[in-house]
């Protein structure tokens, strides 16, 4: 089975560059020729998770594995961790600071949207250590 793997370092100090990793993956997925709907779902979920890493965790690392069957993505950060995952998953709940809200982020739809657009989603988090969000979108 052939596999393409990608790693993206997401800088935490430059908010203006958030969203670049998902844009870059989108270009590759288009070239590979995935169904447009699959690409759209991956792009949106990845964009949301990437933005989350920048807003809440001072950046991190994204690992992507692309196979003909599915696209798996791991978002690993060394941020503060999520104290209450159920609360964080609620639509409209947000802890984003005011400075990013003024850019239109922080509507509390990040995690709910990631769940909505993916086939699998798992959050591993430890307070003070960091968070890993795993998502998978099935290609077939």
């Amino acid at each position: 089975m052939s596999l393409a793997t990608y790693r993206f370092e997401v800088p935490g100090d430059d908010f203006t560059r958030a969203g670049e990793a998902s844009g870059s993956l989108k270009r590759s997925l288009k070239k590979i020729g995935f169904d447009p709907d699959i690409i759209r779902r991956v792009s949106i979920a990845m964009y949301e998770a990437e933005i989350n890493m920048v807003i809440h965790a001072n950046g991190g690392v994204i690992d992507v594995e692309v196979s003909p069957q599915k696209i798996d993505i791991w978002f690993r950060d060394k941020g503060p961790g999520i104290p209450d995952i159920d609360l964080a998953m609620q639509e409209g709940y947000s802890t984003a600071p005011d400075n990013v809200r003024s850019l239109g982020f922080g509507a509390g739809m990040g995690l709910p949207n990631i769940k909505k657009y993916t086939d699998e989603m798992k959050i591993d988090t430890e307070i003070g250590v960091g968070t890993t969000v795993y998502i998978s979108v099935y290609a077939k």
Partner: protein
Amino acid sequence: MAKPFHSVTLDESKCKGCITCISRCPTGAIRVRNGKAKILSELCIDCGQCIRLCPHRAKKAVFDPFEVTNNFKYKIALPAPSLYGQINNLNDIDYVLTALKMMGFDDIFEVSKAAELISQATRKLMSENKLKKPIISSACPAVVRLIRVRFPELCDNVLPLLSPMETAARMAKDEAEKSTGLDRSDIGVFFISPCPAKVTDTKNPIGFDKSEVDGVLAISDIYPKLIGYMNKIDEPEQLASSGIIGVSWAGSGGEASALLNEKYLAADGIDEVIKVLEEIEDDKLSDLDFIELNACNGGCVGGVLTVENPYVARTRLQRLRKYLPVSKNHLQTDDIHSLDWSDDLEPAQVMKLSDDLETALQMMNEIDKIYNRLPMLDCGSCGAPSCRALAEDIVLGYANENDCVFQLREHIQSLARSISNLEGFIPAPFRETKNQEK
């Protein structure tokens, strides 16, 4: 299949192979081969960006000479509203239209007239709520082609209506047939164009089979003659018959504002257009109803076949519009669907590496590997627009890794090291060796 027509072409004798055009082409459609730029036909969208950029004026737009009008008994000019913005101190459109008649046209049909009908048809379609939102304007032929090539999944969002140019051509012929009694084939309609994409749009139309436009003249080509005639006019003929809505189509935002709906966005300039299309793709603009996109800065007034700075032209149009009624042209309700496209917009599957996902993935893997070996300078010395494009070309069999001058230099260095190591090497017959017998 015959090679599709493109208005944007290369004058080989002027091209120095300087790579200025390759990195700024929005679809990555240019390579330098054999010392000359080569436009890849299936990727080119005729936006004219390379015409603007070429320092040697080697990129040009093919359009029709005025003489093509001689092939018809009855000639009708279809001036684009952007033409009006080219002329200084103009306060009456009739001067331009009268001068066009003096040039040899029998009649004039303003494209802005047809634009007002398209605006009305768009409002009606939007109220029916059947189209996928946000609806993307189909008036800029370069944008429609960009969507087919780079954003195929957005094809369903494109407004399936004829352009004002095509609508004007059909209506002008219908009217002339009735008024002159001539055969349709004796009536020639000629679009006075601000851009090469419109030329391409008449030869290879999208959304329907055959264009009724018989020739496309460039604004820049007829401009000097037009000004000459304008100066001779004492009292212009009353010909102008469009309102604010129609004339405003010449600038970015004109088409969108005519929808009388505030949930719209208008972007102009090819780089900004691409950014907006990316946002639509990521569902970030789903709260909007309509997106107007123009490949040229400022809208059609910024086309490469115009003569005036687009922002100056737009300001002039604002002045011209001032005393016009909002709209002078209205569709009968039963005509509403007469402006629909007959064909669906099909994506151009030219970006895909392979039809088979497994094969495409293997190729992508190979591309990524090669890309990581390249210097990532996007210098263009290899003739491809970027290191990534070179990596793709290599995997597709169109280029070689040694086309990268940095890779070539490394290979030569390593070869030189091998040669220098070998230089001190003495082959067995000439060197003293250990005894082989045990």
